[in-house]
């Protein structure tokens, strides 16, 4: 089980790291007036999601499936709460991450020359990233403390 658990934890921590970086950059860029500043933060946020959060999610999910197969959890009659939380945020969590990545990427393009002030998509991405980050922090707590 150890290689699968290692992959799962590594992926989850890279995912959280990518979300933290994106959220920090997007919050810093939220109210930036000089156009160049908003672009710098939007680019950093988009790259964090694309190169850290999304690959991290993939590693985390592969590790989770590997653990599931090894442990034979198909046969358990009553699923513990922590496992349910893990599945919900693990699977459904991909949707806001992908949407945030797309919005951040399109928002970055719209921040290009001659499009000053069009930061709505980057802000929507920031909200999605913030919600995802909160959900994953709760998930890390649930999966490590394993409450009944």
């Amino acid at each position, binding site marked *: 089980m*150890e290689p699968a*658990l*290692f992959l799962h*934890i*590594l992926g*989850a*921590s*890279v995912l*959280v*790291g*990518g979300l*933290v*970086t994106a959220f*920090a*950059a997007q919050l*810093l860029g939220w109210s930036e007036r000089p156009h*160049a*500043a908003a672009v*710098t*933060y939007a*680019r*950093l946020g988009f*790259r*964090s999601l694309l*190169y*850290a959060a999304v690959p*991290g999610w993939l590693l985390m999910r592969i590790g989770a499936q590997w653990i599931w197969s090894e442990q034979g959890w198909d046969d358990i009659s009553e699923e513990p709460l922590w496992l349910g939380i893990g599945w919900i945020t693990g699977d459904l969590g991909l949707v806001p991450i992908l949407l945030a990545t797309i919005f951040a990427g399109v928002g970055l393009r719209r921040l290009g020359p001659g499009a000053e002030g069009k930061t709505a998509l980057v802000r929507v991405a920031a909200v999605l990233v913030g919600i995802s980050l909160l959900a994953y*922090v709760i998930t*890390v*707590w649930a999966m*490590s*403390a*394993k*409450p*009944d």
Partner: protein
Amino acid sequence: MDLTDWLVALHVLSAFAWIAALVLYSVVIAAGRGLSVPGDVLRVFRVVRVGDALIAVGMIGTIVFGIWLAIDEYDIWDGWIIAALALWLVAGAVGDRLGRTYNATRDRARALHAEGLNDASSELSGMLRSQRGLVLHAVLVLVTAAILVLMVWKPGA
């Protein structure tokens, strides 16, 4: 939930904060390699403050809750725990040098910006592309990965 469950959760959350900081530094280092304008460099370094807070919380949390757990659940003199403690110290020393390397770059960008020199600077670009910073960061990532391996496998436990 008993005390041990909380200790495990806080220890793991601290480890996540540590690794999240490393991911943040990796993104900033990669982004910094394409920068040379002092204003842009200073903006990117503002994000680093979040990483600095995370790595402080992560390193303190892992050692405090880790030693507490080791006393509570394992034997503090187990080989894998001693190895993890040694690697934690190595990570601290490498992180300190890494911080000093990049803080010098930030300070230089700040000085250039204060002097009103906001054109592309080859000096700043060179500092951001320094091999020393990259190597120290890579060592810190490897040491952290080695600690994670010890925590997952717990050899000899």
